[in-house]
Structure formats: C-alpha cells, structure tokens
C-alpha cells in the first residue's frame, strides 16, 4: 500500500470535469457547449481550455438568449467568446416568439422555461447530439438525481424513471438520430466549489455578480430589480405605482431572466469577499434568487421533463 498525495478537492473536481468534457468530445459527433456568461458556464470554459488547449474546442458555444438578459452579461458573453477565439452561436426566444413556437401568456412573463423550446429548435437546426451544460446537483432536488450524461428523447424530454445507470466513470453518450445527451461536467460541484475555483483560477465575471448600486422594490418578500435597461433599448421591470423604489447595494448570486432573478443585499465587491459570503449565507442559491423555482415543490422537475437543461 502506498500513500499518495491525494488531489485537493478542486483539483479532483477539475480532473473529473476535464474527463467528462473529453468523453463528450470522444463519443459525440456534434456536441455544443451551452454558454450564458454566468459563473458556472465560465468555469466550464476554463475547464474546456484545460481539456483541449493547445487545440480548439471540439464544439461551438451556444447561448439561448431570452431577450431578458442583463446587458452586462450579454456583453461579457461576447467578449469572452472573442477572447477565446471560439465560435459563438446565439439563438433567441424572441425569434421563437416571432415564429409562433413560443406563445407568452403575458408580455412580461418570465422566459426561462421558454428557453427549452428555443434550445430544442437549435438542436434540430444544427443536429447537435449533445449539449454540455453547467447544472449542478446541489442546486435543486430534481438535479440531485441527474446523471452526468443525461439522456433526452426526440422531444428533449427527461424521464426520471428511465435514466441510464451510470457506473464508475464509464459514461454512455450513445444516441439515435434525433435524440440527444445533456452532459454536466460540474455535476459534483457546489456553489462554494464554483466560487473557490473562480478565485483560484482568477476568472473574470460579469460585473453584476459583484456588489453594485441598483434600484429595487420589495415584491412578494423578495428583492426585485426595477427599471432595468435591455440591449434593444427598452426598459423592463417597471415598478408598480404602489411600490417604493429604493436604491440599494446588491449583487446577483445567479444570473438569468431579469424578470425572475432576484439579487441579494451584499457589499461583496470581489471574489474573496463572495467566498466568505457564500460560506456564511443562510439561504440556498435558488431559494434566494430564483423566483421561478418557488411556484411548486416540483417546478424544476417539471421543466426538466419538458426539455429544460
């Protein structure tokens, strides 16, 4: 018996994620990496660099734009893809709305769940057989049972009762035409691991992750950002007349659709302060910030069944 120096937890998680990315590259003929500009997908970009440099990534990047994204994040997304010299494909929910494949119940309805439609359209358009995503098992209980390589049928549906067993590190990404795999290289990471990795790798992030002044109102017990400018020149999240607009120091723990992603009060203006804050917070990442997960006990499970990543 030898006593080898074990890998630190970040080195181990990194090595596992690189292995998963290379399995995707080795097994799939036309994969794509979902890239939103958010912190989890930025970690995956760094992992892809470590996995494939000095070569190019064996997949393009794809963003499903809801049209409800923070400008800072969209700009950052474009900048990062350009720096890496990798191909970025953007497909927008608004185009799906124009085609009539996404029909909103109301104009300002959160569009997170409609991303599924646009994603499935993009999968069909390009013939992708695997989408690499940044989902983590610690995020939500429907994710705790998610495979690292998760099988989706022709309709993009996730069937929790009919998932492929996943043993050792022998992943099975085989699909028939029309079916696809969702691969999650950072499944085993927690929010804390992500922040520690960002700190260690000195990754740059969109500015809205750091403490900044912002107009907010209190709505349904949550902090709700108001008067947010959109990249098309419009403004979203108008306060109601009965609501008092307050200017506060906040930051986002997660970035998503402006209409359903709430910031938290924070003075953490750099990564090491965020690591400390993450260690001492009493609220889960989604509990604090994702208004769309709070509608029912099983809302994530439901959306995943419908093709959400």
């Amino acid at each position, binding site marked *: 018996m030898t006593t080898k120096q074990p890998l630190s937890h970040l080195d181990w998680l990194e*090595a596992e994620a690189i292995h998963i990315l290379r399995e995707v*590259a080795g097994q799939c003929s036309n994969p794509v990496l979902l890239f939103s500009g958010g912190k989890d997908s930025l970690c995956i970009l760094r992992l892809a660099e470590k996995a494939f440099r000095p070569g190019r990534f064996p997949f393009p990047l794809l963003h499903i734009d809801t049209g409800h994204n923070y400008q800072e994040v969209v700009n950052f997304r474009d900048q990062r893809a350009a720096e890496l010299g990798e191909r970025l494909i953007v497909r927008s929910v608004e185009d799906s709305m124009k085609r009539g494949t996404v029909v909103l119940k109301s104009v300002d309805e959160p569009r997170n769940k409609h991303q599924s439609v646009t994603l499935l359209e993009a999968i069909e358009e390009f013939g992708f057989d695997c989408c690499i995503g940044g989902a983590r098992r610690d995020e939500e209980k429907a994710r705790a*049972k998610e495979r690292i390589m998760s099988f989706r049928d022709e309709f993009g549906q996730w069937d929790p009762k009919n998932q492929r*067993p996943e043993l050792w590190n*022998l992943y*099975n990404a085989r699909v028939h035409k029309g079916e696809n795999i969702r691969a999650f290289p950072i499944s085993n990471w927690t929010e804390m691991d992500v922040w520690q990795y960002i700190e260690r790798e000195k990754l740059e992030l969109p500015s809205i992750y750091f403490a900044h002044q912002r107009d907010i109102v209190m709505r349904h017990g949550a902090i709700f950002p108001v008067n947010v400018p959109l990249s098309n020149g419009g403004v979203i999240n108008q306060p109601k007349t009965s609501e008092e607009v307050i200017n506060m120091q906040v930051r986002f723990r997660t970035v998503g659709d402006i209409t359903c992603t709430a910031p938290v009060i924070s003075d953490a203006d750099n990564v090491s302060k965020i690591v400390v804050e993450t260690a001492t917070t009493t609220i889960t990442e989604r*509990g604090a910030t994702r208004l769309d997960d709070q509608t029912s006990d099983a809302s994530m499970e439901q959306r995943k069944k419908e093709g959400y990543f």
Partner: protein
Amino acid sequence: MTTQHNDSLLRFMTCGSVDDGKSTLIGRLLYDTKTILADTLNNIERTSQKRGMEAVDLSLLTDGLQAEREQGITIDVAYRYFSTGTRKYIIADAPGHEQYTRNMVTAASTANLAIILIDARKGVLTQTRRHSYLAHLVGIPHIVVAVNKMDLVDYDQATFEKIKADYLAFASELGLAQARDIKFIPMSALNGDMLVDRLDNMDWYQGETLLEILEDVPAAHSEQAEQFRFPVQFVCRPHDSANPELHDFRGFMGRVESGEIAVGDAVTVLPNGYQSRVKAIQLGNTPLQSAHTEQSVTILLEDEIDTSRGDMIVKTAEAPEAVKQIEAHVCWLSETPLSPARTYIVRHTTRESKAKIGTIQYKVDVNTLEQQATADLKMNDIARVSFKLAQPLMVDSYDKNRATGAFIVIDESTNNTVGAGMIV
C-alpha cells in the same frame, strides 16, 4: 460551512433502508456540518408540521422526486454534498431494498467507503448480508458498520458487542473481514450520538465518531500500488493553428486511471505495442513533470506513433494483457433480460467492442449468497458470465484495478446501459 480549501475529497455511500434511519443519518451529517441552510430547514419544518411530527424530521432532507413521493419510495441514487474544510464529501444515497440492487451497485462503483446501517434492535439481517456482499463485490475498500438507534436499546454496550461479533462471523465467511478495513460504531442518528458530536450517552465507546472516521480514511481512488494505466480519450492535433510550433503537436488526452507517469518514462501503446518515451506532460498549457492517479492530463511522446481514442498508454515494464475473452461478475441493470443469443457492446475504459455471451456459469442469490444455475439474467441479478469479444481489451482483474477491471454492457438497439461487469 467554511471558506477553507479542502485538501482532499472522499466519495462514500450509505446502505440501508429508511427504517434503519439512513435518511436521518444523512440529514444529521448535513445538519451537524451546517450544510443545511435556513430556507431548506424552514421547508422541512413546515413539512414536518404538516405531517404532524413534533421534531424536525431530518430524513425529509433527502426527500426525492415527485414521482418518488407519490409512490412513497426512493427509486434512484441521489448525490449529496458536504464539506468540513479539510475534506469535501460526495454521498451516494442509494435505496436499500432488494429490487434496487442495481442502484446499490451503481452507487458503490464510485465509492471509497460504505456505511452499512444496522438497527440495534434488529441486529444483522438478510439485507445487512446483501449490502455487505454487494459492497465487497464492487470493491469498496472501507466499510463502516453503523449500529444505529442505540437510543432505543438504552445505549447498551452488550447489544452493540453482540451485533459486532455476529457481523464479524458473517463477514469472515464472506471473505469481507479479511479483504477490507471494517470499523464498527454505535450511534443514534436521531439524537446525533457519535456522528459529528460524541455526546455523553455512550462513554463506554472510545473509538472514533463517524465524522472522525470519514476524515481519516484515505481519499485516493485506491490505495493499492497500481500500475500505470492511461486510456486515450482524445487526440489533440491542432493543425489549423497559426502557430508553427504546433504543427507537429500530437497530444494524447486522458485521465490517469491508476499509477504514476513521469517525463522520460518508457511506455508502450496498446493494443499495437508501439514503444516510446514520454516527452512531456501537460495540464492545459501548463507543463508537468509527472502525473498520478485521477489527474486528467495530456501526454506527448518522443516518437510519432499512430494512436487514437480507445488505445491505452502503459509503462513498458508493466503492460496488461490484451484479451478477447473475459470472465466477469455481472449485475444486470435492465428491465429487458439478458438474451444469451444476442450481441452486445462492451465499453471498457475508452474502448468499445462487440461481445457475445459465452456461458452464464451461475447467478448469486444476494440474500443467501447461494449460487444457482440459470439460463438468463433479469434486472438486479448478479451472475458470473463469460464474454467473447470482437476487439481485444486491455484488462486487469477488478480486484487489482477498479478502473481497468470494470466495464458496462450496452444494448445496441436502445443504446441503454444494461449491465455492469467486474472482471474476475
């Protein structure tokens, strides 16, 4: 939670049923290590009240999917995480019932330690034997037998000692006691005795608490002095690069499944048997002098060798066999039974081969451990099976190497993973 960087990672699994307090044990570990945050706790407080319970039911923390709640059962392996600041933990939480043998095998495949729960009032049961057999079969090196619900037997030392003796007798029969590191611990997951905190109900027990055991157990994937095995996942040839230095770059990308490699080592690429030396090792663009088990790296060789995904780089002095026939313990995972007439795909490391079933020697009754003759295999069956392969595989026995001794069986028509194999 703490901001410190954990210096290692341990994967472990829990075996037991809800009745043994498995969910409570996991809930307690998460709660006492302060992994549970206030909103989650509020949620389970509300649910506990709704269900008419007085105290917070920590087992609700591992409550699963809607589909499972509707049926009141756990149908799948769930993964949970906690961290102590010195170590990060990944728990594979597998349902314990007999029909879920496949889930237990799945959870065990990546675990370095198994906690086997025994109800102090009931002692060693059939399911204890089943769990122990499976943990042994799947090669988990460290076993913790947790005698739970000690509060319900007045924290009686004699009860604990009796169960320990019973278990050891059975484990010796199985060969488990000789092959594995087994530890016993009396506990009450409900009260928290001997999990994270020692408390003062069992002064007669001077051994480690559960968390102390978890913190001390070796983290490495295996502590055996294993031979170097590097299955090639992907070959990097950046020929479109503007950088002329990269024109001849040919990097073999993969994860060190076992052993160590250093720049200058003599290597052989299997199955072709080409020999060369390691010119460089890289992680991304960073050069390394050496790499060891579980590191994902890129290896460059001194000679130009035609190598592709599915090949294996090994040290010349310690090459494994390339075989076209294998004998294995197989756990059948699919609702569709194994059909001995069909051709399957075997995936071993990064390599695939078509495979025909040779013979099914016997299947094992996981409760009595009796060997029985059989013509086919149904879901959750465990059997000894021989396979004939179309392509050679570079294998070690599973006992020697969990990475190069394991394979999965894939059904070509559905692409489903239908079997898990451990090479004898």
